């Protein structure tokens, strides 16, 4: 009972500490937030007006709390016609603060029958279903706050009156402009991004170290003779990159471009050193094809800064996500080679024997060969594989289940005993050698 009380007490203390840390973390996050984002309710979110004029206004019932606020209002709404396969097209949207109005910017329109398009450039009056609009409105609200939303339509000409339904998403967001410090930071970031974008990051590839996969035709059907060689790697490339050969060799080098599925797009022979190679617009990879791998050129690939950074990050991600550990054992063991003791048996060999024992538990079963004088060698096969020749696998599994179950039970019991030893913080009697 005492132990249970102690554990409960510790849990309560732990939860309390976690709550305090969460609160502090949240406070810090709010403290460093660049912009304040708030959500507001429209109140009524669905309107069914009779439209006889190409505009309709919606008076809002709330949001005087936004008085004298500067920022961006974000909201979305959908329009569909009740009785015809025609949807009125919005020309523009305005939000009002008293008599002041602010024109909103459209996001992408999603029409389930026509896909995504921008309503300001590609509008149609024959939509089969509702059209959804996402709107961003930069505003400098006055003392009245947000009072009205006006939706102005293109005249559709076939009917002067249409019954339609406009459904506003229940909430809109207001992103409050922060102080000018954030604007300065954003400007600095924008300028930095532009500089990175304008900078070219070039890599010079020296194919003298390249490996080759085949002397035959390319796996994707390259129309070259068997004397051509393909470098083994597909190198990612885009039409925004620049590619040039730094030298001309006599082995008829060619750049071959592939699409995203690594199917051949085209090949381009190198005729002039340092001249740019035309990259097809749909090229995603390229390889260098030569007819003589003993006489290889070098070439230069330049990407813009952002793309180079993205490629580098992708390469790091690929490395981090690579779960192949086939070579890790040999590579890891090589690290410890210099630590081996070359001076014969020493004290450390004896001290580390328990660890060697535990480590040897993972050894695979090997048949034991015992040399018996005057009798020859006796080989003891691995019991499990030997018995499996005579006994059904079900019985072996049953025996294995019983043995492992008993052993695991003892292990778990020992864990509980071990934890019980740790329950008293005032007890220093932790005997490692007794464990």
């Amino acid at each position: 009972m005492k132990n249970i009380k102690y554990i409960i007490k510790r849990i309560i203390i732990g939860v309390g500490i976690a709550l305090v840390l969460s609160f502090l973390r949240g406070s810090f996050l709010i403290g460093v937030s660049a912009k304040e984002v708030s959500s507001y309710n429209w109140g009524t979110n669905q309107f069914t007006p009779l439209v006889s004029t190409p505009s309709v206004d919606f008076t809002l019932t709330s949001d005087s709390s936004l008085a004298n606020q500067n920022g961006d209002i974000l909201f979305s709404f959908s329009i569909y016609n009740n009785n015809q396969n025609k949807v009125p097209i919005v020309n523009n949207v305005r939000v009002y603060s008293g008599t002041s109005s602010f024109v909103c910017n459209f996001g992408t329109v999603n029409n389930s029958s026509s896909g995504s398009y921008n309503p300001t450039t590609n509008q149609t009056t024959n939509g089969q279903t509702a059209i959804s609009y996402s709107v961003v409105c930069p505003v400098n609200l006055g003392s009245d706050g947000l009072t009205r939303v006006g939706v102005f339509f293109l005249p559709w000409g076939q009917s002067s009156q249409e019954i339609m339904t406009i459904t506003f998403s229940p909430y809109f967001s207001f992103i409050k402009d922060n102080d000018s410090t954030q604007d300065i930071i954003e400007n600095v970031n924008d300028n930095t991004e532009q500089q990175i974008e304008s900078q070219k990051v070039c890599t010079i590839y020296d194919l003298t170290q390249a490996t080759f996969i085949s002397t035959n035709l390319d796996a994707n059907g390259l129309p070259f003779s068997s004397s051509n060689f393909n470098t083994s790697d597909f190198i990612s490339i885009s039409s925004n990159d620049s590619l040039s050969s730094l030298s001309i060799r006599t082995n008829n080098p060619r750049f071959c471009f592939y699409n995203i599925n690594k199917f051949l797009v085209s090949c381009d022979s190198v005729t002039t050193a340092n001249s740019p190679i035309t990259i097809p617009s749909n090229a995603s990879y390229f390889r260098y094809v030569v007819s003589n791998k003993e006489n290889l050129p070098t070439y230069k690939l330049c990407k813009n800064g952002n793309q180079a950074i993205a490629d580098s990050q992708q390469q790091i991600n690929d490395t981090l996500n690579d779960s192949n550990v086939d070579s890790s054992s040999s590579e890891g063991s090589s690290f410890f080679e210099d630590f081996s003791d070359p001076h014969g048996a020493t004290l450390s060999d004896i001290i580390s024997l328990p660890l060697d024992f535990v480590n040897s538990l993972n050894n695979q079963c090997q048949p034991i060969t015992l040399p018996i004088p005057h009798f020859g060698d006796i080989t003891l096969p691995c019991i499990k594989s030997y018995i499996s020749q005579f006994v059904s696998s079900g019985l072996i599994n049953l025996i294995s289940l019983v043995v492992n179950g008993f052993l695991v039970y003892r292990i778990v019991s020992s864990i509980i005993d071990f934890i019980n030893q740790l329950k008293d913080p005032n007890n220093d009697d932790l005997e490692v050698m007794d464990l």
Partner: protein
Amino acid sequence: MINSLLSGVFKIITSLVNVLLTPINLLISNYLPELSSALGVVRNFFTASFTYIGWVVDSTFISSETISLLIAVFTMKLLVPLAINTIKLAIKWYHMLVP
């Protein structure tokens, strides 16, 4: 995977033990060669014995998962007291330093 990690941990511990005992090891191997031979006999005996552990484990029908659990528990039992004692030592030093 877990076995590889545990093997790596054991190798690190063994290497650390080697580093810490380097002066004593050099003393034994250079100035007490008889003692080194005696230790070598003990080491060789156990090393030879350990080569049969795989056969013994196979004969007991113990699965590799259970062995991994056993090794993990053993590792935990070694590391947890070490970590606790380290924290206690750090706290003790802190109390010594605080006036």
